[in-house]
């Protein structure tokens, strides 16, 4: 792409007292993409987001957002949904949206029109004049997301956007985020749930222990990792699986066997071997490695302890 990337960070370093939150991180995100920032809690994701948002400054490194290093000017073009969400409980919903819209550079009248349309769209048209505190938690989440996208930002920064959401709101959030992206916005999404990132993101950047450990297009990452995982279901002798030159390891999954081929081995050879052994093959499939597997590999290679690995459990409230 000829245009500058939506985000370009070079050598970002940030210390809090003696603790190093980010240790020389480079990061780039192209326009028009949904980029996932993944990593365990406390890895430095929120710090990175805050630097991009110009809430805090880095100790070292350069930051370019939407093609400029003048972060003050880009603030109005960014929509931010922080992990710790909150609204003024005593404010009327419409007033609140207008207030946040005005802070993002909208004219009062314009903000009012957009807020009304937005509330209508998420089904809260009738609650515009109610106080925020009278809304249910799910409704407040909708208002929060509306506030994030009211000024039609070119860059959406979402910190753990799905944590604490009910399933209906998760779908609504995804719909609205994808809608912004179709309109040309870049989305930066931070999450500690790898599966969320895998489902939604075009690119991922993984941070662990203040360093970047993985970065790139999801499909590339998977391709680099190589297609050498097979799922084979069959009837008959499993003798053909014992091929030291071809197979690295197998794992019986009940209905089928997971087979990892050695690097450079051809899956065709495996298929030929299976047919020759006389087994009846009902499934022979090349599977993609999950991001989680890739991460585990990288983590092992980087010598990170298992506790640094992102968890897939529902620590979503986190």
């Amino acid at each position, binding site marked *: 792409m000829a245009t500058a990337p939506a985000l370009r960070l070079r050598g970002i370093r940030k210390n809090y007292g003696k603790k190093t939150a980010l240790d020389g991180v480079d990061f780039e995100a192209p326009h028009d993409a949904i980029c996932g920032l993944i990593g365990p809690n406390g890895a430095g994701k929120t710090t990175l987001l*805050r630097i991009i*948002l*110009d*809430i*805090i400054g880095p100790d070292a490194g350069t930051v370019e957002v939407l093609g400029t290093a003048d972060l003050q000017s880009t*603030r109005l073009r*960014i929509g*931010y949904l*922080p992990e*710790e*969400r*909150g*609204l*003024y*409980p*005593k*404010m009327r919903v419409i*007033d609140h949206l207008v*207030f*946040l819209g*005005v*802070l*993002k*550079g909208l004219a009062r009248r314009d903000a009012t029109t957009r807020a009304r349309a937005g509330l209508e769209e998420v089904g809260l048209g009738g609650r515009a004049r109610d106080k925020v505190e009278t809304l249910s938690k799910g409704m407040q989440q909708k208002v929060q997301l509306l*506030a994030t996208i009211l000024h039609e930002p070119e860059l959406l920064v979402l910190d753990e956007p799905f944590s604490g959401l009910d399933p209906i709101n998760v779908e609504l959030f995804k719909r609205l985020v994808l809608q912004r992206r179709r309109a040309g916005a870049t989305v930066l999404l931070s999450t500690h749930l790898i599966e969320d990132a895998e489902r939604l993101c075009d690119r991922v950047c993984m941070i662990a222990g203040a360093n970047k450990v993985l970065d790139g297009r999801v499909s590339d990452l998977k391709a680099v990792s190589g297609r050498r995982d097979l799922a084979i279901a069959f009837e008959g002798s499993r003798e053909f699986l014992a091929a030291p030159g071809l197979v690295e390891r197998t794992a019986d999954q009940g209905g089928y066997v997971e087979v990892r081929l050695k690097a450079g081995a051809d899956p065709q050879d495996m298929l030929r071997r299976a047919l020759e052994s006389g087994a009846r093959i009902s499934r022979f499939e090349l599977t993609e490695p999950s991001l989680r597997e890739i991460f585990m590999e990288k983590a092992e290679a980087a010598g990170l302890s298992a506790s640094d690995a992102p968890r897939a459990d529902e620590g979503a409230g986190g």
Partner: protein
Amino acid sequence: MNPFTPNVLAVAAREFMQRVRTKWFILGTIGMPVLMVGVAFLIVFAMRDVEDSEKGKTIGVVDSDGTVANLLVEELNDGSVTASRAGDLEDLPAAAIRERFLSTPFDYLLILPAGAAASARGAPAASREETDDNEDRVTATLLARDKVPSGTRRSARNALQRALLQTRLQAAGVEAVDARELLRRPRLNAVNVTDTGETRSQTIQTIASMGVVYFYFMLLVAYGQMVLMSTIEDKQSNIVEILASSLRPWELMLGKILGCGAMAAAQIGIWALMVAATAGYALTRGGLSSLASVAPTPGPLAGDAAELGGLDLISGSISWDSVILAVLFFLLGYLLYTSVFAAAGATVSDLQDAQQAITPIVFVSMISLLAGPLLMESPNNRWAVILSMVPPFNAVVMPSRLFATEVPLWQWAISLVLLAASVAATVWMAGRIYRVGILMRGQRASLPEIVRWVRHG
């Protein structure tokens, strides 16, 4: 740099609207003065009730000499109690009288010492001009069944004084004097005469200068706390992070200070109107003296007002220059106090910590409150002058002095410059503390931490 950015105005407008819309604003603005006046009246009526209940109580006079008793009974009967001689007790020793008291029909028993009326007691009258501290004063005893209300005690003492005076005068050959008339204290009006020949009532000046000390202190601390609460509210409702991504922390701080300030202005404006309306009514309808007459003793203001003629007196005693300067000092003081409170609010995350954080601030500002009596006594005392020059006290003490006395130009000018400089420094520092502090969660920031924020931002 223009401090009134659209963001500052948006925050200020939100702050103002949210505060003015609550019922607490209406209650606080209308209710507070009404409540204060109400409490004042309640106390007055309660005191009158005490007086009423004393009416018709009986008091027995025990005078072993019998020289003062009849006059004393007469004088006592002029008041609200019913007095008579307790003749059957007169020959008993003091201890026996005390024993018998409860079985007598009297509510009180006034026992005179032997020789109370002897005229040649102690030193000659001329050197006994102020005998209040003198050892050889006549000491009478008042026995009572319950706590003696101060009014009853005072009127008994006054009656005794008059009776003694008359007895002695009669003994000296002076007949038929009105002791009450003789003992009435003259009034003394202190009036300042300035270089320009204007005269000013010191009573009005004292009231104005004391009022300013307490009112300024109260308002500065109250509005300071409002800004502090507002800051904590942002942290507690988790909105601060969104705000921080849209505006500069100093914009948030300044917006809050201005928004609360606008509310304060509205509130003070309403109070001023209420006071002006009441005073105008009272002075034009002569209502002030009737208001004052409700109180047990007429206030000095009522006396002066009656003599010198109401509004003219107030406007003659307080110059417009000092009013304008006092407002200026208040505005600067408001910026100073609220920015300190805002910074304090940014260093904490909950109310308990906030309480601890503001204690030293309130404590220090109390010093200007304690200066109140000093100002009343002598507004040009060197300590008063120093306090009126040094921030943060000068924001409160200088306006007070301006009303109390003629402050030389160099004094208020230096004070104003110092205050303005300290406002600039404080707002700058508070801004830096605010910047880091508002994003901080959990524990309260320690002092070294705060110092680091200020130094490195």
